[in-house]
């Protein structure tokens, strides 16, 4: 039962106890989805899933995350769908469709809030979002960013968008927000490259200096784009400290398919799995689970998805588990590093790539 999880601090469980609780809950979810989602039942049948052989969360069949783009997967009646979340995919590609019912939505919010309060303390905080307000409206264009902002909306006491529709800094709004909250606890949230390009660079150019030393800079979306411009994470933090006085950084890894159970960055710079979810790194050669320190394909499990079979997913990211139960920050569970999206393969053969060239 999920209630059992809520009784614990989100980072309280050590490996053995967490594995026991997660396995039991994930098995129950697997049964639940099998009984309600025929495609998922076929998937389990194909793998010859045998519940009696499950010992750890790694024994639950991992479902390829891309299939949410190709199939509409629901474990509830369509009428019970409270919202449909869509996610990433570059132009022209199909997007994931995640069907969320009331129960799953509430769980997602509750868990997100529990996780975040472990970092910024109890209660909702004012939030400055480094994005344009349309990110919530134009869902097709910015699906991943929109989903991330939407996921945080309820955790914010008030939400102010720092950018104009053309992605320039809304200087007036920014100054107003800074004046009102400077020196107090609040959150600045944005995707790393937006924060760098449209927030930091702009403040630097304008010569704005503010005291955000009590604030949390929460980021997401990965580091690929910045790294390609030779901006390291350390450099990013240093520069944002210089201009805004930020001391608290809260990067996170998450995906729309497992909203709520995010992997948030601790004071030591590690992304942590909470008791509600876990990461299993798999070997590319045979998908077997890899030990701590060995990089491979990221699989995620989460006990939150109730309305769609998204509780055990094979992602298209690579990562590594850095350690378990022994982070100096004191949080129990695995802490990880995400190495980024897997590179696409350029295949030989006479498939249709010329047409793409002609478009």
């Amino acid at each position, binding site marked *: 039962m999920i209630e059992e999880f809520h009784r614990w601090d989100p980072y309280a469980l050590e490996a053995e106890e967490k594995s026991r609780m997660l396995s039991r809950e994930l098995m129950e979810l697997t049964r639940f989805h099998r009984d309600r989602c025929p*495609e*998922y039942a*076929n*998937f389990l*049948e*194909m*793998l*010859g899933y045998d519940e009696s052989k499950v010992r750890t969360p790694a024994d639950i069949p991992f*479902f*390829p995350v*891309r*299939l949410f783009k*190709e*199939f509409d997967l629901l474990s509830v009646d369509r009428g019970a769908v409270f919202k449909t979340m869509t996610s990433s995919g570059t132009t022209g590609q199909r997007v994931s469709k995640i069907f969320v019912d009331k129960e799953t939505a509430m769980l997602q919010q509750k868990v997100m809030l529990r996780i975040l309060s472990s970092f910024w303390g109890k209660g909702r905080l004012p939030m400055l979002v480094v994005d344009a307000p349309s990110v919530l409206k134009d869902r097709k264009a910015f699906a991943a960013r929109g989903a991330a902002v939407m996921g945080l909306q309820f955790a914010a006491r008030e939400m102010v968008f720092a950018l104009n529709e053309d992605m320039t800094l809304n200087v007036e709004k920014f100054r107003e927000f800074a004046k009102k909250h400077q020196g107090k606890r609040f959150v600045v949230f944005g995707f790393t490259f937006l924060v760098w390009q449209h927030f930091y660079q702009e403040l630097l150019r304008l010569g704005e200096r503010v005291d955000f030393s009590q604030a949390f800079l929460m980021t997401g979306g990965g580091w690929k784009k910045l790294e390609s411009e030779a901006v390291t994470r350390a450099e990013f933090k240093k520069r944002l400290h210089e201009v805004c006085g930020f001391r608290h950084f809260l990067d996170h890894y998450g995906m729309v398919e497992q909203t709520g159970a995010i992997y948030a960055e601790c004071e030591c710079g590690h992304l942590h799995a909470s008791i509600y979810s876990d990461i299993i790194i798999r070997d*590319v*050669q*045979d*998908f077997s689970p890899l030990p701590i320190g060995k990089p*491979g*394909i990221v699989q995620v499990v989460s006990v939150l998805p109730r309305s769609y079979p998204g509780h055990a997913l*094979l992602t*298209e990211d*690579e990562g590594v588990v850095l350690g378990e139960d022994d982070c100096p920050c004191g949080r129990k569970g695995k802490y990880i590093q995400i190495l980024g999206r*897997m*590179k*696409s*393969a*350029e*295949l*030989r*053969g*006479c*498939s*249709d*790539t*010329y*047409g*793409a*060239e*002609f*478009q």
Partner: protein
Amino acid sequence: MELNSNDLRFLVGDLETLSRMPETPVLPAFSEKAVGFLSQLSRLLLRDKRSGTDVKAYAYWIRRASLEAAAREGDYRNRLGRGVALHIAPSNVPVNFAVSMTSSLLAGNCTVVRVSNKPFPQVDLICETINGLLADAWGDMRPYVCVLRYEHSPSITQALSAICDLRVIWGGDHTIETIRQASLPPRAVEMAFADRYSIAVINAEAYLECSSEDVAKKFYTDTYYTDQNACSSPRLVVWLGDSIRQARERFWNALDQLAQREYTMKPIQAVDKYTAVCALGMSRPGVRYVPGGALVTRAEVDRLTADVMDFKCGSGCFFEYEAKALCEIVPVLTKRCQTVATLGVDRERIRELVISSGVRGVDRVVPLGGTMELSFVWDGFKMVESMSRYVDG
């Protein structure tokens, strides 16, 4: 629109040659000019240290003996070129442009090949060698060959299509759709090579009598050599016979061992294959994933239906079926089915099955290991015949 040299980058020939083509007299089929030119090209490429496996295979295919054998296969006495032939070559099989050009020259056409903008050393090597020949003893062939590149442009494709009598499109459904937006002159004909799939049929007993390593090498050439992404690469393996269990185990083990030595797989390919198998498995009951290494990904189906072939992946992703009788393969012999590769199954039986059941697919039945072989017959076209014109009477 007027063609001009700013838009076209010539690897062989020039704008003047191209502009004169509509007026250039075509050649008879298998003319001594074309045969001599190609066989000299063959000699030079076979001798060239820079030639890799694919260029060598091409060069071997166009040596004089092979061309003369092809000429004897049909009656080409009253045949000559159709006129200007425009070939749109695919972007990811480097020597394909030369294969298409070869049949076109043998048919007697003035041949224009558009190659991909993606640079390939094979393309450079073959074009450089052709240029050497045209500049020297084979100047007579100069009016008949142009190889060029251009940035995507419907107006250039239209201008080239407007002067052609034959258009040959490689590269699959999407390319065909795009190129067909350019209209053809009333008398022109078109040969389009669409997306296809291929299958293998193996008799278990016959297999068990073969060297498993030898068969693995052949099947590897059929599949992994082109990332299992060629139209002719089998994606479905159908087993016949009584000792299927034993044969299957030995077959896949041998292939896995070979792939471990020879094939470089990126992580995303492992995920892609697992995703493709799961997509099939979700779409219907009766699919069984066969656990094992990710190099050889496979799933077994309990009945053969055409939709099995919709789940395409490549990189070593196979579906398998144990058949009681050969006729069970009929549902997958759709119009998209190109090649049936066989081991221990009489090719005549497959041909008979195709003809007697009246299916729309199967243009080619070859022994396992032979799917990649170059041929003057492709996708059901006798290439030189289809590219030439017959004078009756």
